[in-house]
């Protein structure tokens, strides 16, 4: 569940979001599109508790963006950035083990999750040796391990091949079906027709288009 009212985010004196209104229900997929600098990444970072709300109001997964504990919000939502990895000098397994232990979660699920994202053969590979697509899969593995109620995927399709895109589409569809709120930022509309997402267009830090 996501609610934003006149959300303004200023960082270093620059307005990234200039008054966003948004309502997202559980079990829905929303694609945020827009030109470079339109505010897509900032919107996802705001929902993920990675930037603070300057003015306006909002709640994400039950946490108030203005007065709530952003650290708690970060734990509740799953955010995946462009780079999608933790530590470059740790292996795939070590990265996941660190993250799981940090949140006090069992590490037994790691092999299953790695298999789901197709990284079983890369378990001991250092993260910095992974390709962009593989790094994103590692990030997804982490989200699958946590199963958050809100998924925020920032440009998950960037520099992915066709197989990678299909894989992401399928996985996103599965997550939406399980009842999670999923927000994806992307330059182009999603290719897969099975998902039928709601598409928001951003420009100048505002929502300027909303097509369901």
């Amino acid at each position, binding site marked *: 569940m996501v609610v934003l009212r006149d959300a303004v985010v200023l960082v270093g004196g620059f307005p990234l979001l200039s008054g966003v209104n948004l309502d997202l229900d559980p079990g829905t997929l929303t694609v945020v599109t827009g030109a470079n600098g339109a505010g897509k990444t900032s919107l996802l970072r705001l929902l993920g508790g990675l930037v603070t709300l300057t003015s306006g109001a909002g709640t994400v997964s039950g946490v108030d963006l203005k007065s709530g504990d952003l650290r708690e919000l970060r*734990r509740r939502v799953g955010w995946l950035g462009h780079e*999608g*990895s933790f530590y470059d*000098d*740790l292996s795939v397994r070590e990265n996941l083990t660190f993250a799981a232990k*940090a949140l*006090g979660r069992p590490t037994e699920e790691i092999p299953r999750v790695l298999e789901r994202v197709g990284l079983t053969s890369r378990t001991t590979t250092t993260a910095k040796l992974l390709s962009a697509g593989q790094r994103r899969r590692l990030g997804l593995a982490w989200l699958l391990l946590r199963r958050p109620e809100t998924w925020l995927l920032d440009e998950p399709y960037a520099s992915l091949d066709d197989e990678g895109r299909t894989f992401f589409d399928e996985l996103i569809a599965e997550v939406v079906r399980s009842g999670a709120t999923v927000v994806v930022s992307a330059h182009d509309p999603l290719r897969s027709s099975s998902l039928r997402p709601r598409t928001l267009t951003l420009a100048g830090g505002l929502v300027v288009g909303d097509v369901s």
Partner: protein
Amino acid sequence: MIRIALLVAGKDLRIERRSRVLLWQVLPFGVTALVLCGLALGPLHAGNSSAAPGLFYLVMLLVALLMINRAQVIEGSPGTRASVATLGLDPAGVFLGKALALAVELWLTGVVVLAGSVLFLHTALSGTLSALPSVVVTLAALAAAGTLYGALSGGGQGPATLLPMLSLPAFAPLLIAGERSFSDALHGGSLWRWWVISLVALAAYLAIGILLYGVLEES
């Protein structure tokens, strides 16, 4: 808090062991700096100099600056920072873990630089050994302070140049306390008050770090 601290310390040390920056860059730098100190003292004073304890700590301060920057670089890329932020880790635990990892690295480097001091500056081995406990405490205080200053300078403009500016004034009492207790140990005496300075500084930095490390986090 302790669980997170041990996890973070283990992670930092594992990354350090894998990247070998400590082994191939920091340790040689420490020894090189010590040799340069000997050259700066001149042929008459380089051996058996009363300046040796002070030079040891001066070298350790420079080494600490390198390591603090290095510890920041580990979390440096925006992707890593944001990914780690999503874990919502307890900041007090993160602080303690990073300080512990830095302390371990400083202790290891300290042993090598002390050996260099015995070799190049002719400090007495027995005196150097008896200085070890105070060196351990002072370097731990340096690690706790350095972790705080690393977080203070991180992410702003010119963090690598801001760090020495922020940290060196605070390192001054540690330098004094460390140098005095090391000198005392070399001359067979031991003054508790230098220990007190290092211990009080260690306790103060640990307390500030545990209470306020979260405040320093970037939004």
